């Protein structure tokens, strides 16, 4: 809770400093663009966050975005599929990728980091090969109906559609993570998978679910990306997105140790990340420094979080000394005769 308050405050400070930057920063258009970007990046941070909470990690998000965008463009142009079908197929690609990750990690016990690092290379290569290693354009564009509906319109209170989509998905995710049995299992698995398995819960299933959710959200990002740009560059589109996704989740309070994190936190983390980028622009900081600013903010957050955790740990240990410390030692017992 304190963590949430902390990052919430940080977000407000950032927003405040944006408002005083200049006229352009205060404009409705800047807000709209900011909201649109938060909506998009929030999707992948949400996927990455849920996975991180369950104790996993996905480094392939950017490549999945690239591959799914490529698949979507190919289906719409070369194959002439209907938009709805093509989008469903694209989501299916994400689903299959997530399932493969999940199965290999749970059943073959490939380390998640290694598995998805391999994925990062594999899907990027696949996307380039499918597209003949060249940029592809949608030509006459995404069918206006879908684009208006999903991308351009300010259907709800003038908000960018991607932000509305994010808020809806985040709402569902919040109920899932914080109120449902499955979410409880997911975060418990992140903390101590063995204890959950020993409680008779099919842990592998929930871990696979987390991988699938992460990749499907990445594929969905790919769809929104195509709507926005009307084209795809398979060799570069989506590059580094996994890092943004993970950074957003971590800034939002997800611990890479697993078991920790909230949906609201992930949203705030994403917003902070986007605000930082926007601030660099609006304050006239050389844009070359954008990554450095983001990296610095992330590092600061990590250091603060760790000292907060230590402080809490010390207090907790102190409060229970004798009892608990002894306890910890006893746990190391091995079997005596």
């Amino acid at each position: 809770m304190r963590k949430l308050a902390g990052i919430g405050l940080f977000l407000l400070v950032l927003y405040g400093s944006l408002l005083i930057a200049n006229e352009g920063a205060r404009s409705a258009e800047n807000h709209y663009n900011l909201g649109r970007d938060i909506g998009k990046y929030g999707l992948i941070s949400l996927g990455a966050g849920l996975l991180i909470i369950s104790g996993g990690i996905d480094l392939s998000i950017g490549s999945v975005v690239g591959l799914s965008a490529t698949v979507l463009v190919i289906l719409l142009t070369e194959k002439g599929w209907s938009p709805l079908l093509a989008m469903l197929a694209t989501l299916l690609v994400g689903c299959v990728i997530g399932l493969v990750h999940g199965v290999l990690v749970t059943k073959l016990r490939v380390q998640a980091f290694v598995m998805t690092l391999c994925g990062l290379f594999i899907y990027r290569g696949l996307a380039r090969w499918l597209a003949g290693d060249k940029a592809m354009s949608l030509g006459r564009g995404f069918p206006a109906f879908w684009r208006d509906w999903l991308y351009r319109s300010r259907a709800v209170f003038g908000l960018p559609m991607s932000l509305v989509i994010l808020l809806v998905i985040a709402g569902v995710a919040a109920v899932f993570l914080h109120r449902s049995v499955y979410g409880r299992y997911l975060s418990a698995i992140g903390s101590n998978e063995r204890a959950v398995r020993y409680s008779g819960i099919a842990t592998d299933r929930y871990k696979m679910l987390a991988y699938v959710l992460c990749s499907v959200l990445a594929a969905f990002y790919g769809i929104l990306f195509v709507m926005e740009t009307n084209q795809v560059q398979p060799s570069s589109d989506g590059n580094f997105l996994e890092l943004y996704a993970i950074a957003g989740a971590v800034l939002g309070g997800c611990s890479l140790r697993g078991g920790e994190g909230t949906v609201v936190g992930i949203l705030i983390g994403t917003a902070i990340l986007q605000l930082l980028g926007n601030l660099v622009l609006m304050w006239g900081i050389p844009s070359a420094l954008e990554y450095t600013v983001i990296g610095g903010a992330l590092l600061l957050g990590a250091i603060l979080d760790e000292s907060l955790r230590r402080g809490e740990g010390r207090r907790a240990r102190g409060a229970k000394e004798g009892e608990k410390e002894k306890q910890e030692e006893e746990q190391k017992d091995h079997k005596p005769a």
Partner: protein
Amino acid sequence: MAAEHSGEATPAPYLLEARDVSRAFPGVQALDRVRLSLRRGEVLAVVGENGAGKSTLMKILAGVERLDSGTVLLDGRPLRLGGVQEAQRLGIVLIHQELNLAENLDVAGNIFLGREPRRGGFLGLVDKRIYADAEPITRRLGLDSSPRAPVAGLSIGQQQLVEIARALSLDSRVLIMDEPTSSLTQRETDRLFDVIRDLKRGGLSVLYISHRLKEVEEIADRVVVLRDGRNAGELQHDQISHEAMVRLMVGRELKQFFRRTHVPPAGNVPPVLRVERLRLDVGTGQPISFSLRGGEIVCLAGLIGAGRSELAETLFGLRRPLSGEVFLDGRPVRVGSPAEAIAHGVFLLPEDRRSQGLVLEASVKANVTLASLQRVSRLGLINPPRERALARDLCQRLNVHTPSVDKTVGLLSGGNQQKVVLAKWLTRSPRLLIVDEPTRGVDVGAKTEIYGLMDRLAGQGTAILMISSDLEEVLGMSDRVLVMHEGRLAGELPREDLSEEAVMHLATGGGHGS
């Protein structure tokens, strides 16, 4: 090693003395004016329940932890311990219960870690002398492995001896041992005691912390009992007895420590569990057959590595047997996962509650309801008031001492944590409950409650398979004892024939005892 600080002018009556030592942590007074004095060449045992302050006191004496008030005197001179290094220089060495060995190094490398004789100038090569230097120490301890053997390949018991060897190589005058036998076999324990007696003759003083009162009876010259951070009493050599220690530890008589109200089934009751020629995937893989009736508490005894936990894990679906059959209530079952085991009414209280039983960072509530969330949820959504009510009810039934069910479970005492793990299964009625070391690291009061619960469950017809290395508990609780040795069933002892000797005889590979 005997103290080499010979020729001290006027020897103080005590080598090491703690006077009115206090230490507070936020919310708890860990030590309140505790006194303790250690003579030269004496083994002084410090006993007490979990949370009594033993570990804190030892850490203060070893320079790990600072004190708020009070004095520590060495040779009658007040001591300001600045840290572990300084304490070690003065000859006070704490051997932690947890092993602090560098697994990638060999035995000698560990003994001299940080103090290696060097050669080769700036290259800092480790001098091979350490192997020759290590030899006499390891021999003295009866550590039957070469100084060049990698530590990772040693048994836990041997690793413990390496820790002790390290302490001895420091020329210590006071050796503080925190539960040194918790991972040793009986034979290794006996050898350790020989070593301690030998060291004692050489003038070394030992502070010995243990939960195993039997061992304290055997090795201690004097016993200091702590309770709730205070001195609860002291027992001279001729006063040391199990009962006396327990009385001081809990501050009351523990009558009927092992209370048995359940009546084990007599005659031809069909078994709840029947295991036929089950071959485990460990050890020699010899077939195991036995059966267990409802309302019966059967104990699996044996040494480390005898295959007891593996048998439990196989029955709970965590391991696959090589072959053989398991019958529950007469029907053959294949248990492929814990979920299936639970569906069959087979529950496990795992050996290591922290790594296998609890989600430590989560609340008491989340832990006790983890296995039965379906009962308090609809359409996959948890109903918070119902979950809370269930958690409260379970905690009450098991007498879990916690200020609130929202408390983080990792902050509870060992006994209460264990009750939380047990509570998890109480929402259902187990047919077969397997408990693996149910009272390890649990204080006396909680032990009694756990025994009481097992007794109640047996009374309700649950078959209980208890794995225990605590012979007292084995003798106190079992209706029958199955002894395992090297992956096979070495024998069976009915309650009438139970004795420590009979169990140990079978456990160490002797023939059939009954």
